[in-house]
């Protein structure tokens, strides 16, 4: 019992820090609210879906950024998709960086795009890692 409580507290604090550090926003809470007995792992399911899909997009964008000259339209399109997906899970930082990236695309600022993308990738990886750890705790056996 006490151990459970401890685990729960640990979990809660993990979760809270994600918010506090600005990685997640209210959208994540909305997802949690959708979770119910019928879909007890809903949040994790959605997050997993997101990472699977977005990983593909990250690779695509990376390749596109290696091209010369840069096709800003295409880049913007990919990032639009990526942003939509990130927004759905409440990935706050990543979403902000996506927006920034798109602005650079619009301005035709290749360097700005690349710099932003590096930041984005970093925050994306951080959040992913933290969420994986969180779900592992929250859903033993997950």
């Amino acid at each position: 019992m006490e151990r459970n409580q401890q685990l729960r507290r640990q979990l809660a604090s993990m979760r809270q820090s994600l918010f506090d550090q600005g990685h997640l926003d209210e959208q994540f809470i909305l997802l949690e609210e959708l979770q119910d007995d019928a879909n007890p792992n809903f949040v994790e399911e959605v997050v997993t879906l997101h990472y699977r899909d977005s990983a593909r997009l990250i690779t695509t964008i990376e390749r596109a950024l290696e091209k010369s000259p840069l096709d800003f339209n295409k880049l913007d399109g990919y990032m639009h998709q990526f942003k939509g997906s990130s927004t759905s899970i409440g990935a706050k930082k990543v979403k902000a960086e996506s927006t920034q990236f798109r602005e650079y695309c619009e301005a035709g600022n290749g360097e700005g795009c690349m710099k932003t993308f590096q930041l984005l990738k970093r925050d994306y990886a951080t959040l992913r890692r933290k969420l994986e750890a969180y779900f592992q705790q929250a859903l033993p056996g997950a």
Partner: protein
Amino acid sequence: MSTASSSVTVSDQFPAGLRVLVVDDDPTCLRILEKMLGTCLYEVTKCNRAEIALDMLRTNKNGYDIVISDVHMPDMDGFKLLEQVGLEMDLPVIMMSADDSKQVVMKGVTHGACDYLIKPVRIEALKNIWQHVVRKRKNEWKDLEQSGSVEEGDRQPKPSEEADYSSSANEGNWRTSKRRKDEEEEIEERDDTSTLKKPRVVWSVELHQQFVSAVNQLGIDKAVPKKILELMNVPGLTRENVASHLQKYRLYLRRLSGVSPHQGNSFISSHSQEPPYGSLSSLSGLDFQTLAATGQIPAQSLATLQAAGLARSAAKPGLPMPLVDQRNIFSFDNQKLRFGEGQPQHMSSGKQMNLLHGIPTTMDSKQLVNLHHSAQSLGSLNMQASAHGNPSGQSSPLLMQMAQPQSRGQILTETSGGQVPRLPTSVGHPILSNGAAGAMLAINGIGENSRGTGYNSVSQTSSVLNFPLNHSAELPGNSFPLGSTPGISAGMSTLTTKGGFQEEINSDIKGSGGFMPSYDIFNDLQQHKPHNWELQNVGFAFDASQHSNSLQASVDVTPSVLVNQGYSSSQRNVQNSNVSAMGKPIFSVGEGSEHGIALNVGQHLNSLLVDNSTRVKSERVTDTSCQPTLLPQHFGQEDLMSAILKQQDGLGPAENDFEFDGYSLDNIPV
């Protein structure tokens, strides 16, 4: 009557159970939406590809109440899907996107989206989407009512329902009303609606013809409501009526031009929302009327023509049987006969409905009239209609066909590719042009009931029929022309609308002035009726046509057209012959009695067919060569035509009783 209710299951727990189809290529969003919609107690189907979604919608015509789609999708632009759904199935479509820029939202509006949600979508936003379904149905009823209102007899005022229905906030009442509506004649409610709301204009074939003529005269780019109104010179018509009709027409034309080939088929059926005034439609409308007028197979040919025309414009080349989509329209089984919608799915984006599904709605009223007189006008009209940018010229060809005076019978063929046999369309009455025509017909039909002539009824019916399109608001087409023509009752009664359309038709035919019962269908139609329309009209047209005339030639229009719609002439068959002889259930109408009715099908096809058939009679009855062209695109017009023709012949004289006084099919330039 009934039938309608079956398609729309409005249960007591509405909006619980609302059948939603959600389309989004992003799996994360899709899953979240699915969950949210499930929480709202909706019945959710998710899909990650637009093409797959369209297939699902087509195969299960009445399986969904509303569609939610993302804007940016890799395989198909969300707006395109929106248009298609609007045309083919006339379902309410909600767009969503993370993009909230004004332009994109505006695009959604212009393409006919009933709402636009910004991602991330909140569940609160989804909780109220049912209102769009209700609203649409309501509008359909209203349309039906409009056409029905012309007929004095059938109105059964039910104020309470209407009132309840109006207050969407009053869900409970709505449910009650809705249920009642579904179960009872919609006419009743419609009556109320009409009394409660300002009178809706029924864009009968005639009116639409006039409209199209006016637009063509001015030039589609320069056509402004005010000028169109002046040119049309129709008392009682307001600038607003014209404006909204013009908008639909434009969408329709745009859709025609931008429609991809495979859309062709859907055009006819999808015409529910707004009458895609593709050339097809106008043609068909004209033809129909003309055909109907002649009492020969006009209705059928008209339908066929229209269908063909529509099919063409819709650019759905792929459909061997363009009617396939139209099937939906015609298949009254579907209950959701969307008369208006059925047709031109391809046609305008989103909501363009062919007023005359069966009848080439694109035809300006003038065109329609011209049809009578000369196919040429049709042609030109079509051209004009298609001027917009009809890329494929599908519509043009159709129009062209119609217009050619010589080829009156050809109208059908022309639309389809020249095969349409010319139905001698002595269009006394305006041919049902696709949306408008239908509406007009309805009006005419209703009004003419007094005539009592076979033709009268037919023509009337046709007008009524034409509109079953689900247009929500503009299409008066909803009025189910079939019903209105009393004259046709003889024939009509035989109509065995599959989807319940029959009931209406029959009842109407029986002499009821108004074709009310059909409204139920319309409700159902909401979903996908448009398709049905197309076919039905076609079938109808054929039947009516003419036994005597051996429209065969003209009827070549692919029997498939007739068949598709399931509506199969049976409904229209007022006269008796269920044109279904075609082999495909569709129209059995045609045969003879129904000219008008067949036309109703709204589907251009029908009108085409009908027209053709009638025309063929006069012009060249055995213009078999023409046939297949009727519905070149969508349907195998040839098949339809032939089917129709066959039916007609087979039917015997009874069917060809239409005496379309009004419509001189001869004139229909096939």
